[in-house]
């Protein structure tokens, strides 16, 4: 009964083309859906089993029309892995660049408003003082420029801590951690890990045979890309489409379980838990990430060193001085502290040295021997006690000794090479100021053998070139990622022309099958009327 089988075949063809058109329709609907992979219906000729032997009729009988072999999802696993790798790298660089950009903004001294200009003004005031060592105007001017210098150093230090605080929190307060960028990222990452576990679970129950659960796989890949933005990962796929995700050797998700969830702590509370004295013994980051398993058991106590890639890796390492020659907020803070403490010690030493003389406030036409504790710069502890130990950019101040009423006379301008030459009337002696001016070109061993201003400029140069090279690295990486995204889009995106061609193709096939059906139907009619 070939006619009836033809009827069946064309009915099957109608249904197959209907399904094919529905796949086209699915594709077209999702042409703008993020992460959607184009699907394609693979058709296959249906073969009806049976011995053929030498009978050609058997050959015809074996033809069962068309069937859908599978619905294929366009994909390229190699490209996906490579893309995720580069995406991690890009996000890491982005965080580093963001940090350096803000650093460069803090130290943008091109307009003459920065520490460099304040240092110049400071030395200019010294020059003026050298000409009029006994003038209260010159002395007040020097004190004012010193105040400008110290408050600028304080301000830059505050800006730096704020920069670090925005990234990682201030290291001690929970609130500041919760408002930091790292906290937001850590939460997003944890969410993504949970989402992945859920999709894995769905895949385990859905993709049970040989055919793929295309839409779930799309979701899974999208979440993997999300995770790769935060940390660098390696992915292992099982036959049911669920994946295990590792960062380094550490598993984060295995199947339907999040086996390595992140937890975050301030450096202070981490130290408290581990018996480390904070902040004196702590040289690490302001925030500490740890990895815990699904029951909350700690897997990795301090995961900061494990997490090196992605936005999280870039951010966590963006503000700590590792003494590895890489410039970031941490190294700049350390340099600035060094600068402040070295300025303080240079000028305090000169102001207090033997045979140096300040002016007697009781009679400003007379010199008075300088004394121990006659500091120009100092810092103050919580009780307001003056000390010169542990001066940093954050706490350096012009000493109260100088700021108090009549304090200006405590600046030691005079110095007698030969102590016997001391003459209390020699208020015009400015040898000590000349020595202070001399430090402008003096190489300081504690400043890596550079002068004060050169040290600052070199720090500036480091920030600038680090920022510049980070920018070009980031731009290159963006190009790489962009080009990969293009390749991926090209590989599995929906192309309208393709779909329209397919649509017409299936429509035509559908119409043709319908025509065959009609023709076979009329043949059957003809058959029915035979012999009437």
């Amino acid at each position, binding site marked *: 009964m070939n006619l009836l089988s033809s009827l069946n075949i064309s009915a099957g063809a109608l249904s197959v083309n209907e399904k094919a058109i529905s796949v086209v329709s699915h594709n077209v609907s999702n*042409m*703008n859906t993020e992460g959607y992979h*184009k699907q394609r219906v693979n058709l296959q000729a249906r073969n009806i089993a049976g011995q053929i032997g030498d009978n050609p009729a058997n050959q015809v009988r074996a033809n069962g029309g068309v069937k859908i072999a599978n619905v294929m999802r366009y994909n*390229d696993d190699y490209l996906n892995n490579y893309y995720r790798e580069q995406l991690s790298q890009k996000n890491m660089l982005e965080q580093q660049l963001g940090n*350096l950009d803000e650093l*460069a*903004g803090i*130290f*943008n*001294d*091109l307009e003459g408003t920065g520490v*460099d*200009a304040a240092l*110049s*003004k400071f*030395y*200019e005031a010294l*020059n003026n003082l*050298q*000409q*009029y060592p*006994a*003038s209260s105007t010159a002395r007040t001017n020097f004190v004012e420029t010193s105040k400008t210098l110290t408050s600028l150093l304080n301000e830059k230090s505050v800006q730096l801590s704020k920069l670090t605080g925005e990234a990682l929190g201030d290291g001690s307060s929970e609130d500041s951690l919760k408002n930091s960028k790292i906290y937001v990222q850590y939460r997003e990452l944890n969410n993504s890990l949970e989402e992945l576990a859920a999709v894995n679970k769905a895949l385990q129950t859905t993709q049970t045979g040989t055919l793929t659960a295309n839409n779930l796989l799309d979701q899974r890949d999208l979440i993997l890309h999300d995770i790769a933005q935060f940390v660098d990962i390696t992915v292992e796929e099982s036959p049911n489409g669920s994946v295990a995700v590792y960062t380094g050797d550490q598993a984060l998700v295995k199947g339907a379980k999040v086996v390595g969830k992140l937890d975050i702590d301030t450096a202070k509370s981490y130290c408290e838990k581990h018996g480390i004295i904070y902040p004196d013994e702590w040289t690490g980051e302001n925030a500490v990430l740890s990895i815990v398993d699904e029951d909350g058991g700690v897997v990795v106590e301090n995961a900061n060193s494990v997490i090196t890639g992605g936005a999280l890796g870039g951010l966590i390492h963006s503000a700590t001085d590792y003494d590895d020659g890489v410039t970031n907020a941490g190294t700049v803070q350390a340099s600035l502290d060094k600068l402040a403490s070295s300025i303080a010690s240079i000028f305090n030493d000169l102001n207090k040295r033997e045979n140096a003389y300040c002016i007697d406030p009781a009679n*400003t*036409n007379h010199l008075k021997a300088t004394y121990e504790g006659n500091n120009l710069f100092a810092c103050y502890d919580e009780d307001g006690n003056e000390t010169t130990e542990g001066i940093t950019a954050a706490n350096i101040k012009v000493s109260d000794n100088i700021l108090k009423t009549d304090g200006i006379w405590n600046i030691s301008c*005079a*110095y*007698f*090479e*030969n102590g016997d*030459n001391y*003459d209390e*009337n*020699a*208020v*015009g*002696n*400015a040898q000590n100021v*000349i020595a202070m001016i001399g430090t*402008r070109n003096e190489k300081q061993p504690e400043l890596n053998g550079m002068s004060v*201003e050169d040290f600052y*400029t070199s720090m500036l*140069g480091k*920030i*600038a070139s680090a*920022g*510049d090279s980070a*920018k070009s690295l980031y731009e290159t990486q963006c190009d790489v990622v*962009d080009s990969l*995204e*293009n390749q991926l*889009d*090209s590989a599995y*995106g*929906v*192309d*309208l022309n393709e779909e*329209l*061609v397919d649509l*017409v193709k299936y429509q035509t096939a559908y119409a043709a099958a319908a025509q065959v059906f009609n023709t076979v139907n009329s043949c059957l009619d003809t058959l029915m009327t035979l012999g009437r």
Partner: protein
Amino acid sequence: MYSNRISTTARYNLLTEDLKRNEANYNRLTAQLASGKKITNITDDPIAAVNIVNTNRQLGQITTFNQNTQLAMEELDSLDDLMELAGGYLTQAWDKAVQANNGTYGVTSLKALKVEIDEITKTMVDLANTEFNDNFIFGGANTKLTPYEMDENGNIIYNGTPQNNPDYIRKTEIADGVFEVINTTGDRVFGYYDSYFESADNKKYYPQTDENGNTIYVDKKGNQYTGDESALTAKTDYSGVMGALKILSDSIQEVIDAKESGDSDAETASYTKMFSTLDMFSKAHNDILTEQTKFGGVQNRLQMTESTLDTNTENLTSYLSSLQDVDLASAASKWMQAQYSYQASLQVAAQSMNMSLLNYM
């Protein structure tokens, strides 16, 4: 199979990226043109940024050196004027000394001469006590202490710091690490006359009459000598024009006294003393000339420094401009190019976005 495939999404994304790139370039060039600066952020060009900061610092230093030089030149100008005046008065006094030594002058004429000499002395002291910018010029490092005072014993005492001692000179910085000495001292230009009693421990005491009419010995700070009076030795230190003036005045008085008492031996001795002042005046005149010449040289150097500093400023300013200022012509032409290519990409995007088979179905 995928190699030639390009999806609609990919095409849209490519178009968007190209648009963004063109837009960014266009914005950057617009910002450069608007600000006139090539670099607005230190990361734009690290080397140029460091150079700009260094150059700004050097320009600031040069401004300071320039101010120092100007001020030093002003002070040296007045120093020169004062020494010129001092030289003039010295010549006058010298003439009087020659006249007094003449031997033919009678007591009245000599008295008149002495009055003139004493006037010149006072003028000279006033000259030596001149201030510049609130500082005594001839006091060395003792800028706030009047350098010369005349006490009741007729001493012309120098209160300033002694010459040629590195602990007392005043200097000004005229180039990086280069200091120029800008003061001389009174004892070098004017000298002094100091007559005092020296105690056994080499301290100076001056005789005074107390309220009971007794002679007491007091040091400069007002401390009274308490030791044995016989241990005090009378001493006289003098030098320069001040010494010469005082000795001239004293010797004229001695001649007058001798003439009036008719003591011819004393008169001869006094004339000998008076004659010795001629040499002193000659030497003092030389001293002043030497100082004038020395500071004339300093002034010349300062003038040269000033012009060097001006040249440096010009060079550095133009270097700074080359570092940070936009070359308007090339920036404008680049900006036009960027505008064209941005426009072109907009047009292409607009027209090709909706191209698909759909238009023909």
